């Protein structure tokens, strides 16, 4: 071949090095070249363990190519391509370098054959991605980036600790299927869980992503969580606990997404919800379910990227992102509106859009394995997605009341990136085999049969009806967390009241516990500071007499202990 075969992360690193030293239009060319070169390079690679290193006495395999990693490899190249196109107008070296290195790290992680290389790329992802948040250069984003970094670093440390334990238990660092037994596997599981935004561990995502730059969020949404999904699919397929975690992940963000005003934060919650579908698929662990999970990861990158791009365009052009401040933009941003609607339809899993062909795989797998309750939870979540991502996002941004903002459509490169993503959304929705042939397992699954299409269409129609009815009656306060049609007015009012009281109590208790805890923490820190400050008793310059006293005390202890032993 006319190109050298490199590990997939190398093209991006090399380009990053060149970008660092170049100026002007050359940077644009280089940035565009990175994913193309990378994809060509990946296409050349054969399957197998291509690169092995021995560090100290550890066997490392930084390059393992198989169907699963190749699938994610292509996905990441595709994602980085449209993200880079979207960000072409950005003239910020920090962001350009961060996104190249971030992509490189994500690629390195999915092609790592052992846990230690995975850890190195894991940390590299954390360190490079945080600059996409900091690049917004506001006090908020700095603080939020620090919180984000803290979570990511803790995840990395857990992974390292887990790796150590796992190595001690199994004597091998190979990253293959691990059953959830032993401390090592659990620690690794939690490390993945943090990056995958498991419930209670998810706050970094909803806190960090909305605070990144317009184009940074698109990158962020594509890689970190998908690497975690890859990790779970590789390491823990078929772990039953994942089914329940995934089900909770699909349902709980809906409530937050409905009451949230910042539209990019709504999307962040909806990202967790989509991850839930993948996690459920991995938890079920049959071939169909795993195919569904990774296929959904693929589709999620496309439609979530598209939605984040459209919201990024709104933010870029209007400078606002809160639902209450936007509205009526369809008059002056018709193209963005249309593209956003494609993304909304895809995420809501309309037939003929790509969300449909993968989501139904996971749900069919759940039914096949007899998880009826989980299926119901997923159904509920689907309705919720349609409500908050499919309707709320486009409605509040582009329609609703006219906010009087008259911004134009964004620059051509941003539109082009969105068109690429939207075209792929439609293409995969119409010809699902495009995607299916890439999947790690061969499957004869057919998404378009009567029951699937009918069930999904019904669900969507009724969810839309609910929204419409609520809106016409003026009963749609943005804080209301429910859209059930069969619940009457009083009951909803009552529920809302009970809910608000209950949440009030929970909130207050939670606040109280936090306050007490914070107070204790402050006391502890004050105590530590008191003794360790330069003027504190431990760090103060001691008199010679005191030092002599200490050595005398130690001598006494040592002699005493020795003589007891003798």
């Amino acid at each position, binding site marked *: 071949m006319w190109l050298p075969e490199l590990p997939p992360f190398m093209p991006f690193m090399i380009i990053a090095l060149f970008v660092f030293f170049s100026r002007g239009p050359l940077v644009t060319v280089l940035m565009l070249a990175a994913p193309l070169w990378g994809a060509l390079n990946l296409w050349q690679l054969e399957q197998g363990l291509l690169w092995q290193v021995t560090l*100290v006495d550890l066997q490392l395999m930084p390059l393992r190519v198989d169907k699963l990693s190749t699938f994610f490899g292509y996905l990441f190249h595709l994602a980085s391509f449209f993200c880079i196109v979207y960000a072409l107008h950005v003239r910020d070296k920090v962001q350009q370098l961060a996104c190249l290195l971030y992509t490189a790290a994500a690629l390195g992680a999915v092609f790592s054959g052992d846990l*230690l290389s995975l*850890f*190195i790329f894991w940390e590299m992802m954390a360190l490079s991605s945080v600059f996409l948040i900091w690049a917004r250069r506001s006090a908020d984003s700095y603080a939020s980036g620090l919180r984000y970094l803290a979570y990511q670093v803790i995840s990395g*440390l857990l992974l390292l*600790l887990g790796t*150590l*334990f796992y190595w*001690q238990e199994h004597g091998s660092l190979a990253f293959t299927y691990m059953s959830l037994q032993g401390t090592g596997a659990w620690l690794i599981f939690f490390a993945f869980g943090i990056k995958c935004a498991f419930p209670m561990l998810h706050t970094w995502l909803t806190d960090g992503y909305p605070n990144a730059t317009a184009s940074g969020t698109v990158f962020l949404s594509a890689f970190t969580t998908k690497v975690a999904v890859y990790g779970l699919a590789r390491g823990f397929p078929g772990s039953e606990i994942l089914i329940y975690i995934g089900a909770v992940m699909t349902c709980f963000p809906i409530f937050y997404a409905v009451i949230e005003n910042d539209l990019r934060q709504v999307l962040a919650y909806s990202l967790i919800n989509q991850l839930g579908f993948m996690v459920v698929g991995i938890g079920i662990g049959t071939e169909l379910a795993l195919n569904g999970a990774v296929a959904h990861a693929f589709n999620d990158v496309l439609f979530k990227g598209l939605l984040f791009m459209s919201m990024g365009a709104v933010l870029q052009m209007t400078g606002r992102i809160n639902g209450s401040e936007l509205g009526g933009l369809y008059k002056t941003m018709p193209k963005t509106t249309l593209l956003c609607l494609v993304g909304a339809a895809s995420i809501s899993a309309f037939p003929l859009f790509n969300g449909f062909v993968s989501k139904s795989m996971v749900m069919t797998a759940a039914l096949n394995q007899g998880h009826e309750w989980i299926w119901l939870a997923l159904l509920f979540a689907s309705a919720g997605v349609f409500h908050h991502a499919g309707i709320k996002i486009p409605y509040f941004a582009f329609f609703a009341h006219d906010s009087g903002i008259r911004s134009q459509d964004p620059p051509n490169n941003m539109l082009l990136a969105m068109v690429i993503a939207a075209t792929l959304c439609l293409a995969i929705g119409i010809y699902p085999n495009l995607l299916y042939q890439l999947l790690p397992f061969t499957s004869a699954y057919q998404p378009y049969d009567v029951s699937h299409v009918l069930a999904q269409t019904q669900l969507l129609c009724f969810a839309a009806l609910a929204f419409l009815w609520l809106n016409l009656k003026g009963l749609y306060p943005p804080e209301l967390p429910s859209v059930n049609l069969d619940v009457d007015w009083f009951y909803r009012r009552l529920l809302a009241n009970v809910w608000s009281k209950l949440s009030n109590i929970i909130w207050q208790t939670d606040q109280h516990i936090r306050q007490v805890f914070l107070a204790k923490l402050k006391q502890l820190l004050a105590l*530590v*500071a008191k003794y*360790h*400050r*330069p003027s*504190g008793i*431990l*760090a103060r*310059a*001691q008199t*010679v007499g*005191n*030092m*002599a006293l*200490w*050595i005398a005390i*130690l*001598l006494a*202890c*040592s*002699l005493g*202990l*020795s*003589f007891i*032993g*003798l």
Partner: protein
Amino acid sequence: MIAQLPILQVIVPLLAAPCCLLVGRSKLLWFFALLASAMTFVISLVLLQQVQESGTIHYSLGGWSAPFGIEYRIDLLNAYLLLIVSSITSIILLTAHASITAELNENKHKLFYVVFLLCLAGMLGIIATGDAFNLFVFLEISALSSYTLIALGQKRQALTAAFRYLLVGTLGASFILIGIGLMYMVTGTLNMFDLSERLPQVEESRTVVTAFSFLILGVCLKLALFPLHWWLPNAYAYAPSVVSALLAATATKVAIYILLRFIFTVFGGEFSFTTLPLQEILSVLGIAGVLTASVMAIYQQNVKQLFAYSSVAQIAYMMLALAMNSTNGLIATLLHLFNHALMKGALFLALAGVMYRLGSVELTQFAGLGKRMPWTMAAIVIGGLSLIGLPLTVGFISKWYLLRAALENGWWPLAIFILLGSLLAVVYVWRIVETAYFSPAKAGHNQIKEAPLRLLLPTWILVLANLYFGCDASFTIAVTELTAQALLGGAP
């Protein structure tokens, strides 16, 4: 000539020191001192090679054979330590001229080089000798010269710091002397090899136990084991920058060598760890040292002092590894000896660069230095990452072995404390990074330039060594593995 290498190693700097008095100009003096220390470096390289090829080297001083005369005995541990001390000292000495021109009066330069070489001779002597009393003599030579070196510092606090170090150091030395005296009393010999053969016969006696306690505590004071560390931060902070680098990178390593030699060779690992509560004492003090010193480092305003406390913490790591009493534990100690010398050498030399340009190493002065002195700050960042123990730096290699040893012994809580220590290191390194890269530069600092090449080059030699030995540790690991096995095997 080759046969005389063990003594030449010590004699060269010892004789070069008074010869300095004959040389006139400061630059020539520097050249001369550099030559002497480079010679010790070459000798130590040859010695290491010889030991690796043909085993332990014996050398009888003045032709008097062992029990009567003084014997020099170079085994793998000695050769390894000699190499560390002579190489790091040579690299540090490279910066000396630039650094002391900025920090010392012209008339003190001669004194500086004389005492510096004496200190080097003392340290090399401690390592090379096989005689317990001779060791004490060299210990005093190196200690007295380091008091003088510290007292050369610009600020008046340097005098108090040196005086306090003098008092405490003398206390430690007398403890060591008492220990050696007691051993002589029961065995009638001062040769370490003879001691190791005769001590087991009398190990039940309380005199031996008392000797052991005095000796170990004396050495612990010298190496600043928590809570005997109070002399160290001020001594490092107020000494001239080159001296801080020398003390941080080499002096404590020599004290740890004494500890290893006495625990494993003279008294024997079995006696030290089973008859006596050494494991409990060292592990408790080690954990306390790691945590307390790291936290104290976080609160320091003076960066030299910050790294001084970090040194106390790193020494505590070595003691923890030592307390494991296993092969991997010892490997961790020995690796960290070398690795810590590399990191602290690099860090303190980088601080010498800051001192050269700013005349102060207060943390507030670092504001905006990331742009003004990019190479110096990059050196501090890499050295800091190494302190934290990030993969691809030397710090990772020794932490990895330390964790392995802890897990092998089944000391889970210890592994957590070690990781917690790393997190604390992240905090104190981050404080410097935050100030240097994220704070706006101070008003008067617009004219600050990068440190001169004479300072940067040696700093970056050490920084690159940090990275090189972090990626390819096969040399250090091969040497330390053999050394650890030899020590645990009880062979002298």
